[in-house]
């Protein structure tokens, strides 16, 4: 039983990272019905940007966030205005295909620039620091930080969406883009800001991922799948549901791997499929 307790605790903490992968996806889908297949690759791109920043400036990765987040936000705004906006419309397929193409381009671009070698961000003592709770349970500082940051990101997003003018504009454009422009909102700009916000969260997720694990140009798609699964398990209605989805995915993976490490990924996918079969709108989604 003891090892199960530890597995659950570790799973909850991992869930914070999965939630962070997922929140940006959910935000973009919620505001502009864009299924961004390149989301995982943008996370990896952010990791490489952080790699360059930390190497050239000799900064700690967490401090480098102060540079990586604005860079990724600008990249996001540019991608939306220059690329995705041209494919947006009532049909979701064109933008989905464009994002798929972008995914291929990012992966191959990174491969050309950085080769297929594994990379990792060095964060010094933070990587291994932990607090021992009992004989079998000790909590890593970095995983705890992931969960705390995921919660802070959600609180921040809720505040932004429900308490600020730009959040009001996001919701209005999401409700009815045709009428929103008739009320003076420039939908293309609003979409650009939404993608910038999504990519700022992506930057945070990418740096945390890159401190925790090795990455290479082909790492993106698996991150995308965990993000999608967290969003769908949680249901598309709230970011708290997304966090719960990420935690459920993390716990299932962690518990399964405590029995046999080979089951880790498979168990997560099976849990996702069960949720999809039993509650297609997600555990916390409203039934349409």
């Amino acid at each position, binding site marked *: 039983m003891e090892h199960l307790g530890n597995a659950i605790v570790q799973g909850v903490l991992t869930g914070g990272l999965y939630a962070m992968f997922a929140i940006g996806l959910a935000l973009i889908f919620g505001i502009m019905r864009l299924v961004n297949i390149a989301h995982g690759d943008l996370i990896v791109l952010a990791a490489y940007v952080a790699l360059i920043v930390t190497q050239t400036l000799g900064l700690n990765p967490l401090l480098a966030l102060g540079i990586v987040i604005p860079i990724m936000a600008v990249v996001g705004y540019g991608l939306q205005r220059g690329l995705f906006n041209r494919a947006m419309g009532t049909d979701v397929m064109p933008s989905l295909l464009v994002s798929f193409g972008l995914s291929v381009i990012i992966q191959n671009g990174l491969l050309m620039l950085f080769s297929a070698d594994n990379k990792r961000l060095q964060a010094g003592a933070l990587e291994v620091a932990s607090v021992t709770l009992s004989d079998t349970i000790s909590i890593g500082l970095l995983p705890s930080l992931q969960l705390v940051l995921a919660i802070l990101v959600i609180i921040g997003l809720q505040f932004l969406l429900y308490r600020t*003018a730009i959040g*009001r*504009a996001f*919701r*209005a454009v*999401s*409700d*009815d883009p*045709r*009428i*929103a*422009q*008739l*009320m*003076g*909102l*420039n*939908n293309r700009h609003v979409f650009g800001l939404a993608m910038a916000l999504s990519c700022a969260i992506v930057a945070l997720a990418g740096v945390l991922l890159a401190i925790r694990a090795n990455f290479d140009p082909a790492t993106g798609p698996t991150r995308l799948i965990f993000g999608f699964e967290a969003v769908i398990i949680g249901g598309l209605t709230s970011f708290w549901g997304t966090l719960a989805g990420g935690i459920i995915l993390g716990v299932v993976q962690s518990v399964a791997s405590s029995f046999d490490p080979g089951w880790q990924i498979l168990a997560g996918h099976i849990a996702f499929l069960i949720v999809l079969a039993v509650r297609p709108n997600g555990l916390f989604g409203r039934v349409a």
Partner: protein
Amino acid sequence: MPDPLLRVRGVEAFYGDFQALYGVDIEVARGQIVAIIGANGAGKSTLLNSIVGLNPAGRSAISFNGADIGGEPPHQIVRRGLTIVPEGRRLFASLNVEENLLIGAEVKRSGDWTLAKVYELFPVLRERRHTPSRSLSGGQQQMVAIGRALMSNPALLLCDELSLGLAPIVVKGIYGYMKAIVANDVSAVIVEQDIQQALRIADYVYCMLEGRIALHGRAGSLSREAIASAYFGV
């Protein structure tokens, strides 16, 4: 005669191969209420959509306040002071009453209309300002839609089928408010299927038939027979 506030010249519109407007001309003078009447499918809403920039139009086909605005994107046209109250009200469902009104203020045009002034005009909205917009009655939703448009401080308000789906007594109330709004230095174009209502409030009337202006004139000068024949095309 001074320049009109809005001048539409030879506007055409197409839905695929189907031509919805055939060279429509209208003018709206400052301080006027202009009604556009016509049967279903005559092209009234299409004309409004062309004016607000949803349909493509030639640069000089539409001029507003002395500037040619044809072909400008809708969000820029709103900034010039031309705002629509869309057919069916179309409030933002996930926004409450006050948030819907505040979206109208996004363009930040200076003018008299503020939240306080809209609440003064529609006191019931102040009481319900934190209510989800869709849980209001139809008449109250129409007030929010009008208030949302007023928050942009328009010089010209386009109203598409204000009476749609509302009880006659409510319609009368809404049009009562329109008088008060126009007295406030705002001109209005009213698209209406309810001819009686339109004639009662308008200074000038255009009657559309199959994508063309079939009849126009001062509201008092048009006979019932002339309107009927222009309306039905007999």
